[in-house]
């Protein structure tokens, strides 16, 4: 009964050695298999899928590969993405697979967890996967390479130089640029060019002129101001824009930074709220607008039942079906109060729709190239045509292309505004405070509270948010 192993069986030591060897072989094999299963060429294991890196091809996209694109199919639809993919396939000989969906999280969470995410994602909508969560989990590719690559429009320039200011900051998480917020949104009032022409009304530049038109409209049996009463978010745009314009960027930052005099003791804030309340007091609101949803009030406005409505530049695309052909939609920056620090032309503007490339994407080079193409004037124009909205590409729309009137007037307003843009951050930082201010605005519009009471309630919301542990991390200068 010797303990030594004979040739007949496998000794304990041999077993361990062999299984270790088996493990060494099987690990790379498994990843190779999984790379095959994910359908795309994993650049690290499959040589032919990596193209040569050249000036024209800075990320080394392989000709004839595969590209997997998932986009949020919301207010902008997904036709624009299909147009992009067609252009991409034509140039690179790739085969794109396209998925337009509202269920981003449900469709993509398993793929992220399984290590086979798509190559490009528009991570938006109510069911988006939070960008900061993905970034913390190391799931996102750093996109700085895209910023430093040569622009497709002018190879002498970098992509970075083609973007409107703020784009990089907005997509930076923990010091890394990981998300490209692509759709540029401007906020303000909208009116019908046709109606104004008929009535001989001029575009109001001051709040008094604005009230004057509202009064004339009311006399003509039309409502002055319509707003999306069920969602006080929209009337808050007006109030906050008036505050920022009257009090300047300092007044805006005071709110974002939760300062004790953000509203209380801030004359600009009181003047802004009183200005909006004047519309209520003088009975210049469209009948019933306080209780309507966004679609109901916007449709009423499209039926010439009101002169003005506040909204972001997604409005035209959202109302496409309800807008009469000759409506001639026009954008109007929020008119200014007396002694405003910002000019009439200043607008609130910000970017939405974050596009990301997963770190583990099978065709990461393709994903990066896709983003670089998105930041070309050609693709930006495609987007403006298909989705009726602007992009973060500076002057990104070919002037020869005919846009719908609302988008065209928004493009013009962005141009006129130049660097005179501003943007609030508190709604993203402090949703509870935002909700409470919205509630106060709802009461104000229904004439149940007075401007002073609104100020008190808004300040209380700010003071409460200042106690939030998140308040330590958020600060803008």
């Amino acid at each position, binding site marked *: 009964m010797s303990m030594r192993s004979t040739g007949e069986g496998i000794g304990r030591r041999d077993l361990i050695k062999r299984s270790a060897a088996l493990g060494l072989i099987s690990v790379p094999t498994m990843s190779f298999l999984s790379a095959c299963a994910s359908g795309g060429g994993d650049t690290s294991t499959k040589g032919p899928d990596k193209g040569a890196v050249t000036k024209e091809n800075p990320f080394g996209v392989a000709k004839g590969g595969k590209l997997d694109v998932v986009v949020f199919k919301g207010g902008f639809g997904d036709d624009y993405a299909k147009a992009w993919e067609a252009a991409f396939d034509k140039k690179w000989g790739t085969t794109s697979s396209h998925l337009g969906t509202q269920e981003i999280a449900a469709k993509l969470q398993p793929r992220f967890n399984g290590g086979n995410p798509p190559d490009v994602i528009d991570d938006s909508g109510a069911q988006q996967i*939070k960008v900061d*969560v993905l970034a*913390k989990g190391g799931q996102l590719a750093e996109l700085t390479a895209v910023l430093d690559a040569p622009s497709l429009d002018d190879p002498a320039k970098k992509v970075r130089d083609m973007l409107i200011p703020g784009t990089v900051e907005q997509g930076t998480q923990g010091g890394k640029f990981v998300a490209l917020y692509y759709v540029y949104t401007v906020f303000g009032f909208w009116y019908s060019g046709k109606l104004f022409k008929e009535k001989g009304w001029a575009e109001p530049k001051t709040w008094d002129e604005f009230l004057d038109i509202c009064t004339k409209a009311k006399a003509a049996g039309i409502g002055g101001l319509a707003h999306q*009463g*069920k*969602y*006080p978010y929209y009337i808050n745009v007006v109030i906050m824009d008036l505050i920022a314009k009257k009090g300047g960027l300092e007044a805006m930052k005071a709110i974002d930074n939760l300062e004790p005099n953000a509203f209380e003791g801030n004359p600009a804030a009181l003047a802004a709220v009183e200005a909006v309340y004047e519309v209520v007091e003088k*009975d210049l609101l*469209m*009948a*019933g*607008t*306080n*209780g*309507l*949803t966004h679609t*109901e009030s916007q449709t*009423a406005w499209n039926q010439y039942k009101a002169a003005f409505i506040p909204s972001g530049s997604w409005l035209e695309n959202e109302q496409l079906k309800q807008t009469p052909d000759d409506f001639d939609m026009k954008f109007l920056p929020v008119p200014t109060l007396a002694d405003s620090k910002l000019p009439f032309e200043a607008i609130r503007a910000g970017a939405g729709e974050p596009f990301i490339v997963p770190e583990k994407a099978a065709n990461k080079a393709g994903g990066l190239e896709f983003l670089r193409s998105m930041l070309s004037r050609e693709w930006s124009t495609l987007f403006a045509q298909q989705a009726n909205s602007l992009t973060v590409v500076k002057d990104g729309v070919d002037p020869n292309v005919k846009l719908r009137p609302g988008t065209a007037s928004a493009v013009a307003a962005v141009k006129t505004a130049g660097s005179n843009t501003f943007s609030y951050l508190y709604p993203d930082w402090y*949703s*509870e405070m935002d*909700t409470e201010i*919205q*509630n*106060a605005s*709802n*009461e104000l519009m*229904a004439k*149940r509270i007075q401007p002073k009471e609104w100020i008190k309630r808004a300040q209380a919301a700010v003071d409460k948010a200042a106690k939030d542990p998140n308040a330590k991390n958020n600060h803008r200068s």
Partner: protein
Amino acid sequence: MSQVAQGKGRIGFIAGFLVLPLALYLTFVIWPYIQTFGYSFTNWSGQSPTFDFVGLDNYAALMKDEVFRGALWHNLLLLVFVPTVTILLALFFAFMVNAGGRSGAGGVRGVWGSSVYKIVYFFPQVLSLAILAVLFGAVYRSDEGGLLNGFLTKLGLVDPVHPVEWLNQPDLALWCLLLVVVWHGVGFYLVLFSAAMQSVPKDIYEAALLDGAGRAQTFLKVTLPLLWDSVQTSAVYLGIAAMDMFVLVSTMTSGQFGGGPDHHSEVMATVLMRNFLYFGKSGYACAMGVVMLVLTMILSIVTLRATRRERIEF
């Protein structure tokens, strides 16, 4: 000896059947409850897997939360009115449909056309709550386009320039919603009570009639006592519905997950969802969930106990 073995065999046999459903029940019903209970002691944000244990902080904050207290008060109001109004109306209609008519022949029957009424009354029950919300959204619409406003304007009762903003009035919103729930529920409970009434032997009614009982007397002395079991069960069901109300409030009223104007139609479920999904205070929301669970259980027990009566066999 053989009896013991038989007993063991039977237990094994029964357990064999029960093990799978029990496991499913434990995994998908009981475990989430326990998890919720556990999360209610943390500051979990709902968006990241990390959180800290905070003890009873959430429950302490809940006591001071005016919005939640307001919501609780609204739930209690609904708890009183939803079952009472629904059951009274359903009982009345069921009685009229089944025993309210009186023919010369002396038999017991419903009012004329009752078989049609029964079907018509049941219609609202067929609609899902989501459709109901859209439907009544159109009824309560705050401009002339709304059914109520349009009607009242035509009658000259409402000024077309200042229509009633039904769901945007602090003192009206909750009652408008109550009406929808009652409208939805009456039909179902009418059918339920009808079935119960039909199982009451006709001779009891006939005897009452021969003794000269009027409709009201027949109802109070004969029908209601014999229906008590059904009424009791209905009260519990409607009570639980009144404790929920999430779908209607969240879709019909203003605010993130409803509750507007200015928290005047808030119920516990809407406050919970807002904290859970929108404010990123999931641990806090779990504490609300636990409070709702406890309250609903107390409610069921109290209702069943308080309405217990001697059973009448027939």
